[in-house]
């Protein structure tokens, strides 16, 4: 288990124990965190699991594949700290990760 904190656009904070090996997206879906739609189910084909990663965590994340950056072009208000949460696999290294969920996905 690793603790992942999701800040939703209604200014609520949800800290969840997410099983290692699941993605940050799956942790949100399984716990009904609002704002992560994940329409394509984790296939890097929709950009509706887009999150903003808290700056200090950016370097600790796996680098983006080309496909992820391409999909982020389609995301709602992408920024430098944008990631697709379906591409972030929860591990011990990510224990404590904090992400902000955009006000809407698309």
């Amino acid at each position, binding site marked *: 288990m690793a603790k992942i904190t999701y800040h939703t656009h209604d200014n609520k904070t949800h800290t969840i124990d997410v099983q290692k090996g699941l993605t940050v997206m799956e942790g949100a879906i399984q716990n009904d965190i609002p704002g992560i*739609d994940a329409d394509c189910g984790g296939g890097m084909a929709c950009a509706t699991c887009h999150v903003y990663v808290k700056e200090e965590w950016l370097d600790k994340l796996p680098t983006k594949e080309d496909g992820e950056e*391409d999909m982020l072009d389609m995301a709602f208000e992408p920024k430098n700290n944008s990631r697709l949460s379906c591409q972030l696999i929860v591990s011990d290294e990510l224990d404590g990760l904090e992400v902000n969920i955009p006000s809407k996905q698309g």
Partner: protein
Amino acid sequence: MNKKDVLIIGAGPTGLFCAHQLGIIGLSCEIVDNLDKAGGQCIELYPDKPIYDIPAVPECTGEELTNNLLKQIKPFNVKFHLNERVEELKKNQNRWHVKTSGGVEFDVAAIVIAGGVGSFEPRKFSVKECEKFEGNSLFYSIKDKSIFKDKTLSIFGGGDSALDWAIELSSVSKVNLIHRRDGFSGAEASVQKVKELNDQGKLNLFTKYQMDSVAGDKNIETVKIKHDEGEIKEIKSDYVLGFFGLIMQLGPILDWGLNINKKTVEVNTENFETNVKGIFAIGDICYYPGKLKLILSGFHEAALAARGCFKYAKPDEKLRFEFTTTSKAAQERLGINK
């Protein structure tokens, strides 16, 4: 009024295969899809990307899969209604009356929703004022390119649509192409072309910029764009075009009284019928415990839903299980003469 046994909503792989399964058991159908071509997500999201998990097909692209499915249903002469979205649904005794956005009407015994994750709609700018100009000087698709002649356009996006239109329109209009990063997702040849045009002064490329605001009275007059580092530029613009791909919306199906579970429709696993008798849901849009969003699961669901439709279409007949290899009736329907 189109009178058929079944209406299929969605022309993705699952909907297409359902048409095949209906045809094999002797039921007629027509297909409605909001996109301008068949193939659904396969065509819209990954036409050139390989798929490796279609049984007995080690590798194929989304486009090849779609073309093969279209070939497979050719014998049934299925009529497609593209660029149409289902809007209204009414029950009339034992039949369903359905009306689309374009006013096409259907009278059918059963409905199969194979709508993927909903109908595709263009993804829009997040800047609020954009709504005001949408349709007059701000567009997400181009219907009549002649209106842009000799005008100044600001095109946003980095995919093929944005690049292709920027290249094409740069010969008749003054084009600004704005993209949020240096990399592009569009074809490499188009990226090179855009850079060439930019070097020649035939197009203005702004990378690492995103829209900040738009302003104008009735029509757009200026657009402000903001650099990653905060700098803001104001550019004159008669038109703004946004190409950010498509997003999926469940749309009017939400109002049909179906049990909805997070953007998906609950079904049973015996024949994939919803809580409303005569309405079935298959493919990515259906939900049941253990559901996998795989094309192969959609095919299985299509086969069972097609058979589930039979009792509504032909209540006085009994459906017998047959193999296409040996069934004379099925082979006749497929137009095979032996």
